């Protein structure tokens, strides 16, 4: 009898060992395959906006690649600040593994970004920075670099008669400041030829308006730089409407169908575009790294590309300009 009991004990031990083995194996696999939850809050979710659509696409690609569960939120337009901040609070309540945030406001969003960090959720700042440094990593376009590309390209058209005007988007915004700074650096000493800087509050109509006013005040202007899509397109349309396209050299920033048509029409000499897809991809990649507790760079440049009429349809650029 004693022997049987020992046998039963041995059998039980084996079963137990087997069960524990399988359990551990399963558990390990479970841990490995646990999908991270990441929330991306864009400044806007707008099907017609190529920039945010591309960021969305890039983010989705990264999510697929890293096998994370990605949720993308954003207000209908970049002007809905309250809505964007409500979304941040909702995101914190969901306790995701990381949040990638494109701050809608330089000043006001800072408090909400802080709240994300206070909740212990890794924060990746996307596209633009806030009044104070916050977050584990900033994934954005190097705007100074982009502006610099505009300046160095446009310098070839500069002669002693050149007079330059700048149409910015929002006065005091970091992107406008940095792009202008880069543009000036690219022009070098020719930046003295800049006579006026106006702002359009990211509105096409206002951009046309301020450009027209600027040209009335400084009719000698023969070179204009736009600092984002609204200011670039608005300025170019104003120039075209005034019939001055042959006299005025123009350079724009960001990409849209209108900008491409204006570039094809020769109104723009060049435009500088951001790699929005890369920005979306990189922000989710960095969010994954942050959630896994890996080392992160403080700053990640998504990159910019200068497009002229000649290189619109090269293999690389057409993918950037025409994300399907």
């Amino acid at each position, binding site marked *: 009898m004693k022997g049987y009991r020992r046998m039963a004990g041995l059998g039980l031990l084996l079963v137990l060992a087997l069960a524990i083995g399988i359990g551990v194996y399963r558990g390990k696999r479970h841990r490995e395959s646990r999908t991270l939850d990441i929330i991306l809050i864009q400044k806007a979710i707008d099907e017609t906006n190529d920039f945010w659509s591309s960021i969305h696409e890039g983010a989705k690609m990264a999510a697929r690649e890293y096998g994370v569960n990605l949720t993308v939120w954003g207000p209908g337009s970049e002007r809905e600040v309250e809505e964007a901040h409500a979304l941040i609070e909702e995101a914190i309540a969901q306790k995701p593994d990381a949040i990638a945030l494109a701050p809608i406001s330089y000043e006001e969003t800072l408090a909400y970004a802080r709240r994300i960090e206070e909740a212990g959720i890794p924060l990746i700042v996307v596209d633009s920075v806030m009044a104070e440094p916050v977050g584990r990593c900033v994934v954005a376009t190097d705007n100074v670099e982009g502006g610099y590309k505009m300046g160095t390209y446009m310098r070839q058209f500069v002669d002693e008669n050149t007079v330059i005007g700048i149409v910015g988007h929002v006065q005091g915004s970091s992107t406008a400041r940095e792009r202008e700074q880069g543009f000036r650096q690219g022009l070098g000493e020719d930046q003295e030829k800049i006579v006026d800087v106006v702002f359009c509050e990211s509105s096409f109509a206002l951009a046309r308006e301020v450009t027209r006013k600027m040209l009335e005040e400084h009719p000698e202007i023969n070179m204009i730089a736009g600092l984002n899509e609204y200011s670039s397109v608005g300025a170019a349309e104003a120039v075209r409407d005034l019939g001055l396209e042959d006299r005025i050299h123009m350079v724009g920033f960001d990409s849209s169908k209108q900008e491409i048509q204006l570039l094809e029409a020769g109104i723009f000499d060049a435009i500088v575009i951001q790699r929005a897809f890369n920005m979306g991809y990189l922000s989710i990649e960095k969010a994954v790294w942050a959630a896994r507790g890996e080392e992160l760079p403080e700053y990640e440049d998504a990159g910019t590309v200068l497009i002229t009429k000649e290189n619109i349809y090269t293999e690389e650029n057409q*993918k950037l300009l025409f994300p399907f």
Partner: protein
Amino acid sequence: MERGKSRGRLFGGFRSVRSSMICSFAGLIMFALLIFLVVSLNYTQDTVLDNSVDYTSQLIGQVNEDIDSYISYMENISMIVSINSDVNNFLFAEDAPEGAGEEGLRLPSGSGSVDDVGRQRLAEQVAVMFRTLMDTRQDITNIGIFLGNERYVLNRGWERVNPYVDVTQLSWYQEALQAEGGAVISTSHVQNVVYDSYDWVVTLSRRIRGLDKSDPDSVFFVDLNYNSINSLCEKLHLGDKGYVFILDKQGGLIYHPRQQLLYSGLKTERISEVMACREESFLTEDQYLYTISRSDYTGWTVVGVAYVPELLEHADEAKNIYVLMAGILLLVALFLAAILSDQITRPIKTLEGSMKEVERGDFAHAIIRETQDNEIGRLSGSFNRMTEQIQNLMEETRKVQQAKRESELKVLQSQINPHFLYNTLDSIIWMAEWGKNKEVVVMTSSLAKLLRQSISNDQELVQISQEVAYTESYLTIQKMRYRDKLEYEILVKKEIRELAVIKLILQPLVENAIYHGIKYKKGKGLIRILGYREAGCIYLKVQDDGVGMDAETMSHIYEKHVQDTRSNGVGLRNVQERIALYYGPEYGLSYESVPGVGTTATIRLPDRGEEQRNI
């Protein structure tokens, strides 16, 4: 030494054969199962890889076929369009002089002249044809014919050409001209020829030749919506990390889900490896399985990429089942091993138990049943025979020993010590010389009684009264010899007088009391003989008030006087042995003694009542 050696052996550490057997079985079974597992797991892995190559090949082969059918359809359209007379007339008919009449459309042969209105009508008819084609096939994005920048029909007829584009500079236009009438398939690109539309397409273009060789350059093109290729590739599911991409003849990307990442250098793709690969598939060192399908028709390469660990996830399920099965098998096998080894070792265990019995000397339960006709069965048989033999031998030895002892005792009983006889006779002579006739008579009759009793030794048992009488005869003689030294009393209860006891047990005690107790005492000594029954036993006691014994003397009491010349020859040891032999070891002789006070010898015998009387 033996033990130490055996411990070194495999499974020698176990204390039973059964455990060793079970462990050996378990070891063997585990070994076999392990080999089975390793082989089947590897086999599964290989099979899964092979299967996924086959599966992926089928899928991407299907993609290639679908693309081929798109392209061949477009090529068919291009053939139909290029020989269409309306198209030819629209493109190549010479301008009719003004006012050639309304019959300008009716042309005598392939080439003729047509006025503006006529050409407008032709354009309208071509547009109708295009419209029909575009309406029936959603995957056609654009379709059109161009004669340089001079005239064109585009899509449904109302789309305009992008005013900033020089059609003749477009690559699909130039390549079509170079191809001399063959169809040219572009890579994926943005079609910018239509005003205000920038669609991703794959363009098929073909030069249209009029009947006259001198006709100017003219090109037909049709755009395949890139989304139809896109969705072909996207709907293929090759796991979460798997994807499909397409390369053109030169290795340029037609479709890749990470095209943007590739261009910006964030990702790389093994394009040169794919282009160089002549096999159906290859496996990269980071566990990606590339499966390749080339189309002879388009020259495109469709590549399916799968992540091997994902493929093996299904294999993992099979693995789990294998491991589980192995576990269950192991348990069942162990259970069977336990039962089997139990059955095999049970006879051995029985044998072992029975051997222990024999070791203890119990032969009655030692015989075991011979259940099996095998080595162990035969061993049991031999054991049984051996046990029987030993039992017989032992029985025989015991009988011989007993017979020997008995005969010895008889010899001892029958003897009256010659010294005693001589001393007594000497005393008689002295008494006779002194004229003490009365004393001579008493002594002589007592000696005669002694002699008679020792001669009649055919009976082993005597009545207690006889034994007492015998002892009294002895005491009488001794009392007369040690005249002033010895007194005696006999106080034996009447109810036990007729009980039988083995003879010659009382006299040696009295002899002992005289020679060791009374003899060394100054003055007179008293010997008292008591007899009574108490608590189921008969007690016979010989008390003396002699010098007594110390513990040292007591411990040697049974060894002394066996050959004592003055004793009657029957030693105490003899008495003790005979009582034990006859009545059992729990009965016998015991001594109590206090030096200077006296000694009491007690014989303890069983009281069997009437039964004892009859013997």
